[in-house]
């Protein structure tokens, strides 16, 4: 059964439908792979093999009864930011270490209703705040990829680094992620997989531990574009429990991935050619442009003049919202409590012990930019510049159907690198943050390897609620790139270190 984790979701669905294997066999193969390889990767915070087996048995029973859902029997990994009823949900923070949600997030409830099997809860940066997975209170995640000729451990990116590592290492057929400023797309690029941040409002935020509510969006991570399209279809849809959920019909994303790009106008934004970008990233971008041109797309140079303000705006807006959202962790109703002399002392000790340094930094930045004397100068100003960033995209999309850019300014870096100066870490998100601020959908597709043998991703950005076009462009890039490289650590790969 060692070959089962190698399958795509589409192929696994076919295999299950043709009864070549059962959901129980498929799930068992993945649970065994997790048991064998996760000690090296630390991709999971909580593994749930017994629960997975139960879900797989139910999936097989449902299929036998003729009630197979769209994801019947497909083993997935769930980012530990999605509340799962009865299964501990930590957000990779000590403050939520004992938290067992009494309810299910809408996205995971929809995946369950479609018949998916959950293998466990994946590691992430604490409260999704980071680009390396180094801020998790449950230890760093190791990228299954290594540089050619080196055993040095690399980061999987973040914040959905555990989900990315699990999918890349064949420990799950797909995973859920969340993306606030690049947390699906950057780890997807770092691990050679595909990930989509849908339009804000496409997937319900109900039951997802909140970081920055005006930016957070759930999305799928998988090993190819079609698999992402299948997952996105099951995750999307209107939810009355989320006041920002969009009342939109869910299109046939899987069909869109096969559309092709003939006649599409693809914009190449000049401002994404940032200073200090490596020649390899530049060359990859040029290759991507050529691939789309060869398949019949028209390439148009465009300008997004406020791109350079994306990061500063993001690092005001996101911490501001985080400081408000994280006020709820006070040790009273759930989570960890540290006793004190009185109520205030209890709050202070609980928060001092429960939050890690990056979370504390962002809460402090957030409370500062929202404070009475600085609100207008920082928060309000940032919101106005955010409006200009959205306007940039709207003007661009009057001329083009989608944009092509690199996903990240570098390949995966070493565990512990870029930790000295938070700003160096924040620069990872330079290409992903603007789409988050504008609320438009974007995806990362693996497009090649750098000179050290590490995967690099290209990003496709689309119009609001036009995930279909980015899937079409992503599919075209995937066909042209023919990305078949495999990570060193993977189920069935035999690599042990």
């Amino acid at each position, binding site marked *: 059964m060692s070959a089962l984790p190698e399958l795509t979701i589409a192929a696994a669905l076919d295999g299950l439908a043709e009864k070549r294997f059962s959901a129980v066999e498929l799930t068992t193969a993945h649970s065994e792979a997790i048991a064998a390889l996760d000690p090296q990767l630390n991709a999971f915070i909580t593994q749930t093999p017994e629960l997975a087996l139960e879900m797989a048995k139910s999936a097989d029973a449902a299929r036998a009864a003729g009630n197979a859902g769209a994801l019947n029997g497909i083993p997935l990994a769930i980012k530990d930011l999605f509340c799962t009823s009865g299964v501990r949900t930590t957000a990779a923070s000590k403050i939520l270490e004992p938290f067992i949600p009494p309810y299910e997030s809408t996205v995971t409830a929809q995946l369950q209703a479609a018949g998916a099997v959950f293998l466990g809860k994946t590691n992430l940066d604490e409260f999704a705040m980071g680009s390396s997975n180094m801020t998790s209170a449950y230890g760093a995640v190791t990228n299954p990829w290594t540089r050619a000729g080196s055993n040095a451990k690399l980061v999987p990116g973040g914040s959905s680094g555990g989900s990315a590592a699990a999918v890349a290492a064949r420990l799950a057929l797909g995973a859920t992620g969340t993306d606030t400023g690049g947390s699906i797309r950057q780890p997807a690029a770092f691990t050679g997989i595909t990930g989509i941040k849908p339009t*804000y409002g496409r997937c319900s935020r109900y039951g997802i531990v909140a970081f920055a509510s005006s930016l957070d969006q759930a999305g799928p991570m998988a090993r190819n574009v079609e698999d992402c399209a299948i997952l996105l279809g099951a995750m999307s849809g209107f939810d009355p429990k989320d006041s920002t959920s969009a*009342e939109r019909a869910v299109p046939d994303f899987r069909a869109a991935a096969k559309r092709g790009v003939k006649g599409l106008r693809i914009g190449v934004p000049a401002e994404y050619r940032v200073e200090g970008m490596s020649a390899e990233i530049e060359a990859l971008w040029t290759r991507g442009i050529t691939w789309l041109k060869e398949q019949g797309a028209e390439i148009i140079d465009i300008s997004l003049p406020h791109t350079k303000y994306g990061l500063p705006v993001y690092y005001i807006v996101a911490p501001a919202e985080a400081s408000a959202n994280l006020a709820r962790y006070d040790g009273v109703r759930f*989570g960890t409590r540290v006793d004190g002399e009185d*109520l205030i002392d209890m709050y202070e000790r609980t928060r001092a012990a429960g939050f890690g340094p990056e979370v504390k930094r962002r809460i402090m930045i957030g409370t500062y930019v929202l404070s009475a004397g600085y609100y207008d100068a920082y928060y309000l100003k940032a919101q106005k510049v955010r409006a200009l960033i959205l306007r940039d995209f709207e003007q661009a999309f009057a001329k083009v159907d989608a944009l092509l850019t690199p996903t990240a300014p570098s390949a995966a870096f070493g565990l512990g690198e870029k930790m000295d100066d938070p700003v160096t870490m924040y620069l990872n998100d330079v290409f992903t943050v603007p789409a988050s601020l504008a*609320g438009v959908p974007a995806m990362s597709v693996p497009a090649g390897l750098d000179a050290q043998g590490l995967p690099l991703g290209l990003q496709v950005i689309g119009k609001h609620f036009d995930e279909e076009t980015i899937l079409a462009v992503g599919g075209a890039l995937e066909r042209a790139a023919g990305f078949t490289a495999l990570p060193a650590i993977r189920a069935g790969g035999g690599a042990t270190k």
Partner: protein
Amino acid sequence: VDVAGVAPLSGGAQMAMRLRDDVVTDGDIAEKILANAPDREGRFFAVPKVVE
């Protein structure tokens, strides 16, 4: 950056706030809610004394 005359953008949603009917949609789940409480007394969350 010149932001003269630019209205601040507070959210990512391209829509107006939706209102729902003012009706009870769930409730009577005190035990579920208290299950995660670090400390409780009966059907209440317990905290250190706040009145002298």
